[in-house]
């Protein structure tokens, strides 16, 4: 038996060697051809590549990415600045009635349900978004920090737990959103069952359906957005924690440092650049929240038959492109520029604050 295994191993090793030799020889032939072509070009003074300046070559190699970026990113940004000065832009006829500097901004800012809650809704896009950003981001960052520190300190089944916590990242937002909606169902939903198990009166308690009050459905939304963004944060934190030199912990152990202090005085400062990165990107991400709301509440952005709306700024903008106010692209452009401004200001503030707190 052992003989058989050994001879099989030998056989496969032999095949491996043959394959490696084959590719080695192919490389040799290709190198040879390259050399000959080069010589030929040099001889007949045909080597254009060497005549190009370095920046031109770089531009040539970058061009595929640049073209795609230009069409799908740069042009829309420029276009947004162009659209925002059009008055009464009509998408189908491609006509305008004139130009305006602030007109579209004023339309957005004074629109009910953008900043000021409309009388019949009781909530506005900006308020909704700010609530989501300022609750879900800090909570998820702190949670991710604790979970990754805990994951790092467990030894048995480490890989298993890391996989479990990473799963939400590879699952589909919409699908999980539907599962969440099902879990929070009033009748027979998992959450209500769970609550009643602990003696809480939760029969028919509505979370995401008609009859759900604003804070309950907002809770589900925040819970969901925390859960779905946690995985990536945990992964980033865990890898950076694992990259910390063990000697710091040994030094701390010799100095009788309690665990909580090791975490707050050594682990967190040492991964602070990563925490800052996660903080900035998740604030931006949370401001652009869209698909989790759709997944939980549908494109209306609210449970059926309620007098409020959970729509975010992006959802508000989207209604001018492909919703109830479709075709009003100038207003949509104004809305997205306002969102851009908010994110820019907040990021600048974060960068200022981080200067003292982040140790590179």
């Amino acid at each position, binding site marked *: 038996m052992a003989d058989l295994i050994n001879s099989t191993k030998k056989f496969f090793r032999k095949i491996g060697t043959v394959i490696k030799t084959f590719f080695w020889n192919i490389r040799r032939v290709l190198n040879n051809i390259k050399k000959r072509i080069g010589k030929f070009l040099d001889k007949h003074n045909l080597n254009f590549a060497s005549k190009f300046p370095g920046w031109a070559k770089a531009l040539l190699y970058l061009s595929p990415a640049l073209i795609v970026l230009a069409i799908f990113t740069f042009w829309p940004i420029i276009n947004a600045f162009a659209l925002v000065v059009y008055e009464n832009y009509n998408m189908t006829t491609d006509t305008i009635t004139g130009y305006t500097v602030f007109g579209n901004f004023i339309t957005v800012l004074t629109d009910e349900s953008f900043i000021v809650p409309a009388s019949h809704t009781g909530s506005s896009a900006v308020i909704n978004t700010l609530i989501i950003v300022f609750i879900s981001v800090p909570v998820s960052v702190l949670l991710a920090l604790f979970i990754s520190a805990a994951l790092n300190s467990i030894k048995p089944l480490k890989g298993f737990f890391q996989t479990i916590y990473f799963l939400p990242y590879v699952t589909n937002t919409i699908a999980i959103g539907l599962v969440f909606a099902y879990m929070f169902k009033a009748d027979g939903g998992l959450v209500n069952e769970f609550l009643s198990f602990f003696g809480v009166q939760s029969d028919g308690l509505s979370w995401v359906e008609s009859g759900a009050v604003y804070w309950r459905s907002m809770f589900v939304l925040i819970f969901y957005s925390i859960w779905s963004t946690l995985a990536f944060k945990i992964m980033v934190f865990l890898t950076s924690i694992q990259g910390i030199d063990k000697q*710091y912990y*040994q*030094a701390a*152990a*010799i*100095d009788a*440092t309690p665990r909580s202090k090791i975490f707050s005085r050594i682990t967190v400062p040492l991964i602070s650049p990563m925490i800052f990165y996660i903080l900035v990107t998740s604030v931006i991400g949370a401001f652009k929240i869209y698909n989790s709301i759709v997944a939980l509440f549908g494109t209306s952005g609210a449970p059926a038959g309620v007098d409020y709306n959970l729509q975010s700024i992006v959802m508000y903008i989207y209604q001018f492109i492909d919703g109830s106010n479709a075709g009003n692209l100038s207003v949509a452009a104004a809305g997205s520029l306002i969102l851009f401004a908010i994110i820019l200001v907040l990021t600048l503030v974060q960068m200022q604050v981080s200067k003292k707190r982040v140790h590179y």
Partner: protein
Amino acid sequence: MELRLENLTKIFTNKTGIETTAVSELDITIESGTLVGLLGPSGCGKSTTLFMIAGLEKPTGGKIFFGDDDVTKLAPEKRGIGLVFQNYALYPHMTVYNNILFPLENLDVPREEAIERVKEMANLVGIGTLLDRKPSQLSGGQQQRVAIARALVKKPRVLLLDEPLSNLDARLRLQMREEIKRIQRETGITTIFVTHDQEEAMSISDKMVVLDFGVKQQYDSPQQMYTDPDNLFVAKFLGNPPINTFEAEVKKGYMMINGDKFMKFDVPDGLYDIGMRPENFRATEDGFKVAIKDIFHIGRDTMIHFDFNGVNVRALVDSDDIEEKQKFVNLSIKPNRVYMFDKKTGEVVSHG
């Protein structure tokens, strides 16, 4: 405080179950207030020994005593040790001041006293003016001083240094060597110093332990170890240029070299490993005549190469005793500077 290791053993077992003995039955008693160098080639278990004393590594067997306390099972923070790491492990996000203060934050020390102690330590190691800097703004030598201050500030019972000078350039190393010696003298703390550099260990230590494959070879004062090596390994490990070793037979009480009688020895006849240090040779009229193979004049000394029993041997002699184009030289060596080692065990058989 006296530090005692009793039969200290560490065996590492890897995933496939193969055992590696890093430290084997180490028995050492370190007197209070001495600086002991743990010396050996890389992989000989010296750092493992240090980490076991620190408590970061659990011994497989044996005991560690600090004075009369058995600390073998004690957690590192309860042992009262200061440890300086090879690459210092200074917290990069804290200033020098906070780095030194950090160990005291976890002790029951009044704040004023803690600050006082930080300043005192900083002055002792000579970084009193750098307290506001971050470790990245310091040179290697300064970082080293901060690391020592951090280890000493909580007044440990034992100071452990893990290859503390290996990250420094040659000149700084010489300077820090003296600094460590001075700091140790001033504080009077029992210190263990791990190094693979024999010259460094010899110049700094009160006593040295030479380890090879986790086994103690000799525990003695540096000079004693140099002049009185217990075995071939120690003789070969110490000294620069290294000791000459070759085989020689003893016939009728005479050591035979190149077919001639070299010197009379009172040992049983047989084949021995012989060690002679290059600097112990003298060029004298009545010496043993050898043919010079190669000669290097290096100012004060002259290095001569010649053959002893077919092995190239080097002698370092005074330049005054030798002329430039000399073909032959008469060399003598004191009998007690000729080391004879058993062929099988490597133990010293006789010198003189």
